[in-house]
């Protein structure tokens, strides 16, 4: 961010308090100004913040420093073209009364505000569908409030019928009660999931059908909500790393890296050159693996089982390298704050090259089946089209956004770890249909392999952890042989890495899109609050926009090509 942008913001919002945190602008506004501020940030050409990344709230009940209100709501916006990140914060004095909604400005707020309502109990005036999203409908209380005990479990005895919601959606589409009941135009309701082979995990999709065409669609998520954010508040910064594995479990190491990067950015540490290269190599390798799983499963849904063997076997083969490196197949936990768990083993370059050749062969074989296959074309082209504008409005990022023609990729637009020095292309789709979403992933696999090969040429020798006893554990021989090493180890393990008090957001281009972490630290060794900005969550929020007007079978392949991963969607 440059200084003129900051001056412009200050001039445009004289009432707001404005500060810069880690290159992003934080605006503090009063609730009565929140609508105007968000609308100006979105529509004013000089700010052009068309992408709402996330909505969250902070509960300051136990915070050491007194704040003007117990709750604050934070909207995170991005102008991806100029690499400008703006967070707008507003105090909430009465959560039951709440603040005005932003749903008329950003589609992403539909899901985002529902989550804040569910987790913090903050009302949004004028939100069209404000109800629980992650927790079940019989849940009482709001778990992320600081006075909600972490182990207070509540049993759900019955699932929600969603009847009211689907009828409201139908009414919005111009189908009223009498048309629904009319024998000639009778609407059929079809429920998919939460346990259904097409949902790849647990998502519930309720559709209202006219023949095979979907007139209206509502979804229910939260079946895999396992309290990541609340649990994180009880763990030290390094202890959270195993939990991040289980966000997007198809590319666990990317979550590790994104998380470690977010913490390090606040601590102000620059990891070693070798660690940066390691992170680039590994995150690109995991991007490839994530796309392989997505494509393998998606093509099975379309009836192409052979593709599963071609693509998934390569992923399976890659586990040999991964388990040699990390000791685990799926859940790597390979990063530490300040570096990596350990260096590569001897001979890793040769192993990696063998894996990459295998992947190229598998992808090539699969492409031979898909690329000129008439059935694949007919089933995917012009199906579930999503325009770039709608995609941005709903907060989509990653391959799904790029398939809609928006070339936003953090590796290019907000580079980190020397990505600007690598030579690679960002593929974009022309239509925004299922075909584009498939092909983008094939192309990204090729581009990622390109990045890995460049990184392999230039990776320097050297340590993988920074030399800072406040952050990284001392070498084992020091722990066993002298008292300084021992006490250093003890303190770091028990108290954790101390992050200075404050709040920050940091994003990372994960396989599904921008994976962001929003932290609040009270200066202790544990995060006071940790919010994940999961790419899947907002992609799912725009799902109805893709499938309405298409056939039920199209909805199935659309769901598989947007790669919804439960762990990340529901956390």
């Amino acid at each position, binding site marked *: 961010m440059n200084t003129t942008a900051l001056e412009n913001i200050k001039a445009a919002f004289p009432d707001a308090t404005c500060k810069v945190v880690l290159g992003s602008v934080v605006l503090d506004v009063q609730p009565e100004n929140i609508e105007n501020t968000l609308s100006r940030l979105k529509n004013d050409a000089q700010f052009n913040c068309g992408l709402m990344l996330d909505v969250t709230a902070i509960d300051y009940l136990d915070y050491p420093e007194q704040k003007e209100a117990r709750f604050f709501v934070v909207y995170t916006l991005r102008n991806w073209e100029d690499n400008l990140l703006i967070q707008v914060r507003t105090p909430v004095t009465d959560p039951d009364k709440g603040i005005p909604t932003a749903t008329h400005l950003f589609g992403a707020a539909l899901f985002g505000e529902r989550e804040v309502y569910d987790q913090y109990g903050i009302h949004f005036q004028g939100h069209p569908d404000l109800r629980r999203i992650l927790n079940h409908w019989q849940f009482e209380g709001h778990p992320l409030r600081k006075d909600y005990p972490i182990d207070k*479990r509540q*049993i*759900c005895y019955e699932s929600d019928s969603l009847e009211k919601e689907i009828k409201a959606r139908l009414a919005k589409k111009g189908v009223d009660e009498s048309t629904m009941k009319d024998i000639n135009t009778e609407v059929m309701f079809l429920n998919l999931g939460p346990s259904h082979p097409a949902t790849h995990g647990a998502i519930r999709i309720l559709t209202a059908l006219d023949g095979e065409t979907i007139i209206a669609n509502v979804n229910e998520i939260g079946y895999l909500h*396992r*309290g990541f954010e609340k*649990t994180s508040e009880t763990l030290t910064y390094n202890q959270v790393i195993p939990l991040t594995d289980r966000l997007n479990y198809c590319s666990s190491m990317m979550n590790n890296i994104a998380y470690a990067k977010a913490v390090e950015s606040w601590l102000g540490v620059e990891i070693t050159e070798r660690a940066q290269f390691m992170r680039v190599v590994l995150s690109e390798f995991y991007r490839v693996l994530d796309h392989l799983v997505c494509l393998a499963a998606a093509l099975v849904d379309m009836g192409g089982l052979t593709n599963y063997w071609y693509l998934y*076997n390569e992923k*399976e083969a890659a586990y040999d390298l991964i388990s040699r490196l990390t000791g685990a197949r799926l*859940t790597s936990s390979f990063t530490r704050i300040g570096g990596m768990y350990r260096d590569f083993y001897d001979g890793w370059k040769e192993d990696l090259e063998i894996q990459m050749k295998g992947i190229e062969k598998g992808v090539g074989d699969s492409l031979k089946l898909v690329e000129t296959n008439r059935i694949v074309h007919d089933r995917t082209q012009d199906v579930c089209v999503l325009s770039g504008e709608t995609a941005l409005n709903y907060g989509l990022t990653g391959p799904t956004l790029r398939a809609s023609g928006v070339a936003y990729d953090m590796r290019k637009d907000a580079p980190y770890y020397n990505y600007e020095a690598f030579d690679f292309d960002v593929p974009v789709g022309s239509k925004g249909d299922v075909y584009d979403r498939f092909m983008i992933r094939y192309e990204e696999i090729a581009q990622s392999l390109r990045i890995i090969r460049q990184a392999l040429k230039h990776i320097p020798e050297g340590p993988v952890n920074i030399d800072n006893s406040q952050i990284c554990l001392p070498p084992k021989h020091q722990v066993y042989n002298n008292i300084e090493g021992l006490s250093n180890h003890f303190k770091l393990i028990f108290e954790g890495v101390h992050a200075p008090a404050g709040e920050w957001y940091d994003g990372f281009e994960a396989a599904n899109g921008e994976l962001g972490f929003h932290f609040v630290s009270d200066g202790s060794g544990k995060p006071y609050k940790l919010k994940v900005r999961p790419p899947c969550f907002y992609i799912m929020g725009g799902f109805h926009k893709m499938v309405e007007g298409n056939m039920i079978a199209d909805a199935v392949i659309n769901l598989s090509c947007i790669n919804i991963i439960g762990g990340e969607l529901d956390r």
Partner: protein
Amino acid sequence: MALGLEASLGDTVVTTKLDEIINWGRQYSLWPFVYGTACCAIEFMSAAASQYDISRYGAEVVRFSPRQADLMLVCGTISYKQAVILKRIYEQMPHPKWVVAMGACASSGGIYDNYATVQGIDTIIPVDIYISGCPPRPEAVLDALIKIQDQIKGESLLQDRHQDFKGILD
């Protein structure tokens, strides 16, 4: 050497106990219903793929309809929101049926000791075999399958298992 009836009727007839012949059939044609919710489901995918090849144990016919399955593999975390559905699907499976809790989450809640997560699916439905690991390796899935097969060998047709099970949703 043939004895009894077999001796007088020749090679065309084999006598055995009903339990044994039926259990033999059940053992080697388990049809799994994969209740995959999280990371463990990815490891089940590996168990089904070529390298580990679950079909060597006669259990490759993965069904997504509970009415066609007799082995439920719960792969992943079960939240309270999910528990109702898990129970309903379990009830839709015809007898006889077996349940495997795959991984730490399904067995005990795993690392998720909090408000959202069921602390072990055996509070909802009866479980026959638990697999440790987070997530378990595909070999462990195959091992559980062999254990289920061993268990089936000793079962009797006349006895209903888990008749008096009572979970938190009952």
